[in-house]
């Protein structure tokens, strides 16, 4: 059952991801990206990371992608026109892609030579309480640094927007 669900949502994620690139209209690409986020959330859920799955949907699919769609709608961006690819790109595209995938597989194999198999639902730190505890004890410094980083980014956005207004 778990394997079937995993395969189904992994395939959906990959198909949506390819669709993001293939589609010519930005809105269609954005909607496909929402599909990727949603199926990733299901994969987290299958692994047992419930809080992460909910956060993935709320933050990425529900907030960030809505902003993307909103901006695309506001700018009224049109469909991009397909230009023919150059001869070298056509010739080297497929071999380079295969080489890239091979390199990735090689590095993953080298970095994690004898990792244990993943068990569905085997991850035991995925509840809201565990995540909150980890954030405020083990990962307190990275957590606070990230929040300051986001605060700086917000302040920067306000300063930039101000300048335009005057």
């Amino acid at each position, binding site marked *: 059952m778990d394997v079937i669900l995993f395969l189904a949502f992994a395939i959906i994620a990959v198909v949506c991801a390819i669709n993001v690139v293939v589609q010519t209209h930005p809105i269609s690409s954005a909607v496909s990206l929402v599909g990727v986020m949603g199926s990733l959330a299901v994969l987290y859920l299958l692994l047992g990371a419930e809080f992460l799955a909910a956060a993935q949907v709320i933050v990425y699919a*529900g907030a960030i992608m809505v902003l993307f*769609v*909103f901006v695309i*709608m506001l700018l009224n961006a049109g469909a991009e026109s397909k230009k023919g690819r150059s001869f070298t790109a056509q010739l080297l595209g497929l071999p380079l892609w295969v080489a890239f995938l091979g390199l990735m597989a090689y590095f993953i194999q080298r970095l994690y030579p004898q990792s244990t198999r993943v068990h569905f639902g085997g991850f035991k730190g995925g509840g809201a309480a565990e995540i909150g505890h980890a954030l405020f004890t083990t990962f307190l410094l990275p957590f606070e640094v990230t929040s300051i980083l986001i605060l700086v980014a917000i302040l920067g956005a306000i300063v930039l927007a101000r300048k335009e207004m005057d």
Partner: protein
Amino acid sequence: MDSFIVISLIKVAVVFAVLLTTLAYLQWVERKVIAHIQVRPGPYRVGPHGLLQPVADIVKLLTKEDLVPTYVNKPLYLLAPFLAMTMALLSISVIPFGPQIQVAGYQTYMQLTDLNIGVLFVLAVSSMGVYGIALAGWSSNNKYALLGGLRSSAQMISYELPMSLAIAAPLLISNTLSLRRLVEKQAGGIWNWNVLHGPFPQIVSFIIFLIAAFAETNRIPFDLPEAENELVAGFHTEYSSMKFASFFMSEYANMITVSCMATLLFLGGWVAPWPAEYGSSYVPAAIFVLAGLVALYHGFHPARRRDGYTLPVFGVLFLIAAAVFLLPMVQSWLIPLFWFCAKTGGILFGFMWIRGTLPRFRYDQLMGFTWKFLFPVAMLNLLVTGFLVALRS
């Protein structure tokens, strides 16, 4: 395992049948309530007191011609109502309506499923509901629809923040994300409900939640996405027949969901206002007896000749319902269900009352209100609650 699947299927069928009927009749109730606020009778022609009006509406919507304009972006145009409807109906699956019950020897909960991230699930699903409206507005290729979709997405993103903060405060007190555990923590009586519970009564966050809920469901006074005097019909201008109906139904389903959430988070779910040993289990019967007697009195009143048949029938039905509430074998599940429906219904009535009373906001007022007032107040409320909870533990 097999009995689990069968019971789950039966529960899904029952919940969805009840939910869809409620959706159809909520519309009738709303038209009646607003009509009486405006001193007119409302729907009156189809059936006694217009009671069959929803059936007529459904037949009308089903048989209407389904137009698809030639200039729309077809895949997204067709996806949008489907998305809106799915997301609106999905969140009902984690709402608990009552405690554990026993049916024909099987123990089961009056809830489709209990997730230990139930509150987050509802938030996630409702945040996905924006896409239905935004994509409908964009794919219609119509300037009114596009403006409606833009307004609605901006409004929903903005009001989601105070709403989430308002939800977080009672969660700090109850210390759980499962909706069933949330209600179990509020058991005992009205002083244990989160809206009045110590160390810090959540009245402020209850009100913020309700205001944000009005905006999230695009209801008056925040119905700018479909402001008819500026935008024709807003995001659903180009939709007809069942596609229009699914937007309409999703709006009402969202109303039911947020009312259920307000009941569960702040008003103690199915918990009675005071314990049963002080007689709270006789309240439903008393209410129905009262309603039945009022209906009978008015039915036989000589000045109301036109209601001489309908009102006595309803009076007798109410008295029968009162008798059912006194039967000991159904009391264990009927009385919690009554309290849950009464609280949710009360909030739904508030939605209609406000629709009949308040004018619409201006767009800059709408945005200023949430960012400059609701958000800081919700933040402050959360900080104070967190501080007091930390002091107590």
